[in-house]
């Protein structure tokens, strides 16, 4: 339907209808694909304006119908598909209109092939991510196995289980032991950091009271502080600090920062104070340690960076602790800020979002717990359910599921029969046996072993079936 090609790019709007010169111009890319002009004079004006050599005249009525069929209708379906795509449905494609040779047809084909390419790429990235996870876990196992033997036998000898030792033998074995320990914590840190790279860090969330976690950290830190004869204090508010997160990870982050504070303090005190600030909790860890220069502070979160001082040489460490702490805190939607004066001490603030009361109340109405080990299927199901207005909590394994089903206030539970740790049926059985009040009160749906569905057409049917079962 190309009538004219514009030579003047000033008229070349990306796409759209232009009201100009007493008429309408339909422009697609740099091509004028249609014109509805009132008179021959206007046509001549366009001709001059656009530097065209000729204009083909077509009766207006015919033109409008053709325009609708060949452009407006296909564009409508194209923009529909784009919208679906934007909503995250990567399988969205457009059915090519008959005008295969037109600009619109070209757009449709481009959109579809873009979709194919992106789907392939995303699939590839997932595969890379999966391989990386597998690699990390294999390396972890391969490195820790010999370490287990080394430190295990050394400890046996140190404990005198293999006979009495001379003082020197004891001392030397002690050196082997402490180095094996260092290697172990280095491996653990490296594994954590490698998990944080690339793919989004995922934390398994469940609500907990931060005050207990802080007390637990306080116990560990107090031992460290006592050994250096430092004052140590923990202050928490009286009201609970509810946080939705991975308790172990949060503790790890706080301990990493807290042990740094102790490490870089020679005399004086280390304190840990938590207080509510709006929708968040702020944990302030202060010390009267050696402090940092501005330059040192700016490099603080670099991997393997360590503030240069006699202290850091004595104390050891990998320079990964803060990187890991920040990784976990950010994965919880929080942040870490640092304030320090050389020679006076440092102040690190950990900010974590609190689980708001409003949220917990609202959530109990349309909340669904989805337990599925296959990550692709899980996110597809979750999205499909979310599109229907449910709030979906996701778990990738059965082990922690029972507690969540018991206490999560869910509208329904959807569980796959084959999880990577337990069977779905086992999880449901455990829930029943737990004597929870909501047994029988909320529907639990087991996606059977035979439920094979492709990720496009079958999915919607499955979701509809699930929702029917909820109601």
């Amino acid at each position, binding site marked *: 339907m190309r009538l004219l090609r514009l030579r003047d790019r000033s008229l070349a709007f990306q796409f759209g209808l232009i009201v100009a010169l007493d008429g309408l111009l339909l422009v697609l890319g740099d091509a004028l694909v249609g014109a509805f002009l009132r008179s021959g004079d206007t046509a001549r004006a366009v001709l001059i304006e656009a530097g065209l050599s000729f204009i083909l005249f077509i009766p207006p009525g015919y033109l409008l119908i053709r325009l609708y069929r060949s452009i407006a209708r296909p564009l409508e379906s194209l923009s529909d598909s784009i919208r679906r795509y934007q909503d995250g449905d990567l399988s969205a494609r457009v059915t090519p209109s008959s005008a295969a040779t037109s600009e619109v047809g070209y757009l449709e084909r481009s959109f579809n092939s873009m979709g194919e390419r992106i789907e392939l790429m995303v699939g590839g990235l997932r595969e890379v991510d999966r391989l990386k996870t597998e690699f990390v876990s294999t390396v972890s*196992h391969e490195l*820790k*196995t010999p370490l287990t033997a080394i430190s295990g036998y050394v400890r*046996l000898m140190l404990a005198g*289980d293999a006979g009495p030792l001379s003082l020197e033998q004891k001392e030397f074995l002690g050196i082997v032991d402490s180095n094996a320990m260092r290697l172990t914590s280095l491996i*653990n840190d490296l594994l954590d950091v490698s998990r944080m790279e690339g793919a989004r860090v995922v934390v398994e969330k469940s609500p907990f009271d931060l005050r207990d976690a802080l007390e637990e950290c306080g116990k560990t830190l107090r031992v460290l502080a006592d050994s250096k004869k430092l004052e140590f204090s923990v202050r928490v508010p009286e009201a609970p600090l509810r946080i939705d997160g991975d308790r172990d990870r949060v503790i790890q982050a706080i301990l990493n920062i807290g042990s740094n504070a102790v490490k870089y303090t020679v005399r004086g005190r280390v304190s840990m104070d938590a207080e509510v600030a709006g929708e968040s909790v702020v944990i302030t860890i202060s010390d009267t340690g050696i402090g940092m220069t501005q330059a040192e502070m700016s490099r603080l979160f670099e991997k393997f960076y360590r503030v240069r001082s006699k202290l850091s040489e004595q104390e050891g460490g990998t320079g990964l602790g803060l990187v890991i702490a920040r990784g976990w805190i950010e994965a919880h939607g929080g942040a870490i800020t640092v304030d320090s004066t050389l020679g006076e001490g440092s102040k690190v603030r950990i900010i974590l979002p609190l689980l708001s009361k409003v949220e917990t109340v609202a959530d109990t109405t349309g909340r669904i717990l989805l337990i599925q080990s296959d990550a692709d299927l899980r996110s597809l199901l979750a999205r499909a359910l979310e599109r229907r207005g449910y709030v979906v909590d996701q778990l990738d394994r059965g082990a922690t599921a029972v507690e969540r089903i018991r206490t999560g206030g869910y509208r329904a539970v959807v569980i796959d029969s084959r999880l990577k740790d337990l069977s779905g049926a086992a999880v449901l059985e455990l829930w029943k046996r737990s004597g929870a009040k909501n047994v029988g009160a909320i529907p639990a749906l087991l996606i059977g072993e035979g439920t094979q569905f492709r990720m496009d057409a079958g999915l919607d049917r499955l979701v509809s079936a699930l929702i029917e079962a909820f109601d």
Partner: protein
Amino acid sequence: MKLGGMMPARILIAEDEEHIARLIEFKLRKDGWIAQIAPDGGQASSLLKTEDWDLLVLDIMMPVKDGWQVLRELRASAKNAAIPVLMLTAKGRTERLLAQDPAWGRFELLAKPFDPGTLSAHIRALLGEGA
């Protein structure tokens, strides 16, 4: 089954790494228990079926059957549903989540590398033999 607390407990060690298995066996015998090694998950399963044990030390990454599979079978069987299990893992935190499940019954997780003394303490606690 344990006979009136007079006989030392019988402990099966399911661990494929020879050096680690020997380390555990040495420590357990030293501490007065009867210990035997099963070098893979399959052999562990059949030894659990054919003989009586008071406790299982179970590695996760093993050939034939992994530790979780052995544990699942164990809990499903009438004979060993209640036997205490000490699981060893080199994979760390992710496994800790799994271990929180009350379904595992008397069950504990010990991270590799471990101190043999700590291993013994865990076993004593699982067997209910006073500290």
